[in-house]
Structure formats: C-alpha cells, structure tokens
C-alpha cells in the first residue's frame, strides 16, 4: 500500500504531475476517440510532430513554448489543406510530406540551441515531473474547452464519423465540423506537449481510445474507457518511474501501450472461447 501511495503523499511534484496527467488523459481520451472514429490518426501524429519547429523557435527567442506550438499546428493544418486542395495528391501524402519536413526543421532549429539535447528531449518527452502550477491551469482550461466542444458538437461529430454525406444532408456542414474537430485535436496536442512531450502525446491520443474502441458498444462508453485507461497509465507510469528511477513520460506511454495490448489479447482470447463454445453447442 505504501508503495502505491507514498510517492504522492510525500512529494508535491508527484501530486502536480498526477493532476496534470489526469487532465491530459481526459483531453487525449476525448480527442483520441474522434481521431480513431474519423480515421485521423495520421493527422494527429503529424500535428504532434509538426509543432516541433514552432516550439523550438519559441525556446530560442524566449517566448512561451505553447505559443510556438500553436503557430506550428496552424501552419501544419494550413499546409495539409492547401496541398490537398491544390493538387491531386491525397491528404496522407501531404501529411507525410509536411510531417517529416517540420520534424527536420524543428531539429535543425534546436541544434542551434546551446543545450541542444536537453531542449530536444524536453520537447519530445515532456517534463511532467517539473510541471508548474501555471501549466496545470492552462491544461485545465484546455481540457474544459475540449469537453465543451465534444459536448456541443456530439451530434455532428457522430454523423461525420458515421457518414459525412449524411451529416451534410442533415444540415451540419462537413467542412465546418471537420475543422472544429481538427481544432480540438490541435488544442490537445499543443497543450499536452508540456506534460508528455510531442512524441508521446500521440501515444496517449491513440492507445487509450483504441483500447476503448475494442471494448465499447457506444461512443460515450468508448470515451469513458479511454479516460479510465489514460488515468490508469498516468498513475502506474508515474509510480514505476518514481520507484525505478525511469523517464516519466516514456514510462506513462509504455503503460498506455501495454494496456492496449492487454485488452487486445484478452478480447481475442474471449472471442475465441465464445466461438468455440458456439461451435460446441452446434454439435
């Protein structure tokens, strides 16, 4: 019991990390659910990495990283839209192109910085153990905005995931709500990079919601599972990193990915057993 609780009762930085982590988990679970339903995983990934040069420039000139991340995300979404509309290339080509370009640009910019590897690691993997109260408050505000968007736009988001044509005929503009969804994903990525880093935020977007998709019969349930799995990986990841002196961000993501595979394997075993018992009952 001590092993599970003392890290949090004796260290305020662990409590702050957990609070920030829970807020990130909720935001990522909601955005991740729609990323999976709409098949936007690649765009989420691209956003998570596309913000890198923005953050790098912000660090070099001494602006808040979050501002740079926002500019990077806007640039990324704008670029993808432009290439997709103005050429005959599909969006995944556009995304791939910008994704690698922005990542390289980010690294090139960071390489001008004096503490090159330190800055890069911080951007890619976050610094959840050194999170400030101010960052937690920004994360709280962002999480509230994301919950509000998902709540207000639930019907158009559902229709959009089901069949975009159906959404349009029902009077919900596909372009408008698709952009709102991208905006929601962008906010999640921009704000969460401080806690888990740009590389890892993508894992938190996909793994808990993916596990939720395996278990749930309804979208609301999928979101609830995703939040649960997200918080569980936060808590267990922090705990493991504390006790074994491991990198916190990466431990959290490893927990999230492991949870996904545990659910996946259990689900497959159960399905095999039910189909076997069905076969048996037929004989």
């Amino acid at each position, binding site marked *: 019991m001590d092993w599970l609780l003392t890290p949090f009762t004796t260290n305020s930085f662990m409590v702050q990390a957990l609070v920030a982590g829970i807020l990130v988990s909720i935001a990522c679970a909601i955005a991740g659910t729609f990323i999976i339903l709409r098949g936007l995983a690649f765009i989420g990934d691209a956003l998570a990495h596309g913000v890198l040069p923005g953050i790098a420039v912000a660090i070099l000139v001494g602006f808040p990283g979050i501002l740079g991340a926002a500019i990077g995300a806007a640039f990324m979404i704008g670029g993808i839209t432009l290439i997709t509309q103005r050429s005959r290339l599909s969006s995944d080509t556009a995304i791939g192109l910008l994704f690698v370009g922005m990542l390289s640009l980010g690294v090139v910019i960071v390489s001008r910085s004096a503490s090159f590897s330190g800055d890069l690691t911080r951007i890619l993997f976050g610094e959840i153990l050194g999170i400030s109260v101010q960052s937690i408050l920004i994360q709280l505000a962002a999480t509230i905005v994301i919950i509000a968007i998902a709540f207000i736009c639930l*019907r158009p988001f*559902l229709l959009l995931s*089901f069949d975009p044509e159906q959404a349009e*005929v*029902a009077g919900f503009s596909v372009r408008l709500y698709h952009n709102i969804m991208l905006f929601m994903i962008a906010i999640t990525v921009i704000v969460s990079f401080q806690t888990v880093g740009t590389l890892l935020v993508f894992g938190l977007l996909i793994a808990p919601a993916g596990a939720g998709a395996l278990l*749930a019969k*309804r979208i609301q*349930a999928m979101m609830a599972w995703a939040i649960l799995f997200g918080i569980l990986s936060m808590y267990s990841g922090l705990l493991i990193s504390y006790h074994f002196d491991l990198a916190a961000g990466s431990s959290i993501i490893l927990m999230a990915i492991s949870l996904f595979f545990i659910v996946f394997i259990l689900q497959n075993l159960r399905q095999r057993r039910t189909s076997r018992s069905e076969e048996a009952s037929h004989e």
Partner: protein
Amino acid sequence: MNSLNNSIERSTRPSVTIENTTYLKAENLSIGYSHQSVISDMNFELKAGEAFALIGTNGSGKSTLLKTIVGLLPVVAGRLSVFGQPPGNNHRRIAYMGQFHHSGFVLPIRAIDVVRMGRFPLHGLWKQMGKHDDEIVMSAMRTMGIEKLVDSPLRSLSGGQQQRTYLAQVLAHQADLLVLDEPTSGLDAGGRELYLHAINDELCRGASIIMATHDIHEEAALCHQVMLLARKVVALGAPKDVITPDALLTTFGIVVAGEQKLHVLECLHGHDDQKPV
C-alpha cells in the same frame, strides 16, 4: 411476392387528401460532377404523396441526380427546386440514404444509435430528444423488423440487417421527401417485403419518394413515375408506359423475355456515351 404487390397497389391505398403541392421540380436541369454534365436537359416534377423511380445501370446518372437533389452536388445548369427553393436548404424535410456506408464496421455504435441519427436534422445541435422521438425510433425499427437488434453493435450485424438499420434511420426522420439510392441492395426477401410496406406507409402519410432501383417489377411498379436513365433520359412516364422492351433495351443493353416477365441482364456502360445495341 405477387400477393404483396396486390395488397399494396396504388389503387388500394387509402385516399388521404394530400395537398397537391409540388415538392420537386426540374427545368432543363443538367447534372454532373465538377461542372461536367452527366445528363442534360431533364424535366420532371414530383408531387406530395408520389413515388418516383430512377432506373439505369451503374454510371447512368442515378446517384448523381439524387446527390444533386439533396444538395451534395451543385446544379450544373438549368433549374432544380426542392420545396420551392434551391437544393440544400431543407434539411429538416429531406431524408437521404446514400449507396455506401463505409464506416459501419469500425464505429462502436448500436443499431438504435444509428436509427436515432435520423432524428438529428429535426433537433440540430441542442434540442433534447424526448419520449416522442424514442417512440418514432422504436416504431421505425419495428417497421424494418429489427426491434430485437436495438442494443446490438452495428458491426456485429449482417449486411442485410445493416441495410435494414439504415432504412429505419430514414423512416425515423419522418421527412417529407425521401431520397433513396438503391435502398434494397443487400436485403433478403423478408426485408424487401417490409421495405415495400414501409414505402407505402410513407406515401400514405403524404411523403414523396424518389429512389434509384434495379427492380423493375416490384419497386418501379409501385411508383407513379419511372425515369429510365442511360446518361440521358431514355423514357419518363407511368410504369406501364415506360417499362417496355425497347426502352429497357436502350437503358440496359440486353433484355431477355421469359416467364411473361422481362428480365434485364445488366451490362456496365462505363462512362462513355450510351449507344443502343
């Protein structure tokens, strides 16, 4: 299925007094994709309580016309008025069922959630759904014979059951105009029978229906007007006048006569100009 046809023939429908309004009117209408017209100079009218069938092969322009009516494609030339307005302005009054449902197997969603979506256009973002909506949703599911599948995940349903679910969604809308693209594809005999009954009920309610179909015997015969399409209007009129061997030959290419029925062997036209064989 003959007994069914007799039971729901047009003449036996209860004579509800339906206002004689025009829901759909096309004047010299050209339709197509990105300003390239697929069919030009179409003229037709659809009144309240009437059914309209579009018959033709794949690529003949049926889906293009239906998508233009619901506002998914812009009018290329001419005029098309839907409830007296340009297309795309009457979301509350139009229910649309497209031909393809790509996401059915991925979404964690139950059959009833899909049918409930049929009520979304009437409620917008905010308005709560009430008991009345629940009753309509359940009744639509009963009409399509899927009331026992309420809680089943959509992805666990068979193709035919999914098609019934999409049809129930359209019925739940209680729209004035139903726009259906091959609504019976994938349905079994029982499903088709339920569908034909449902269509009849919708017409009695005063709704109009325009549908693309391959079925020239049951579905098209139920309609007040039939339009044969082969990248042009081959024929337009009452089923008995339009569904003739010559017209079908022009529309489909090959027709085989037998068992006192005309059987259509479909050949794909591609997108070239259609020449009668």
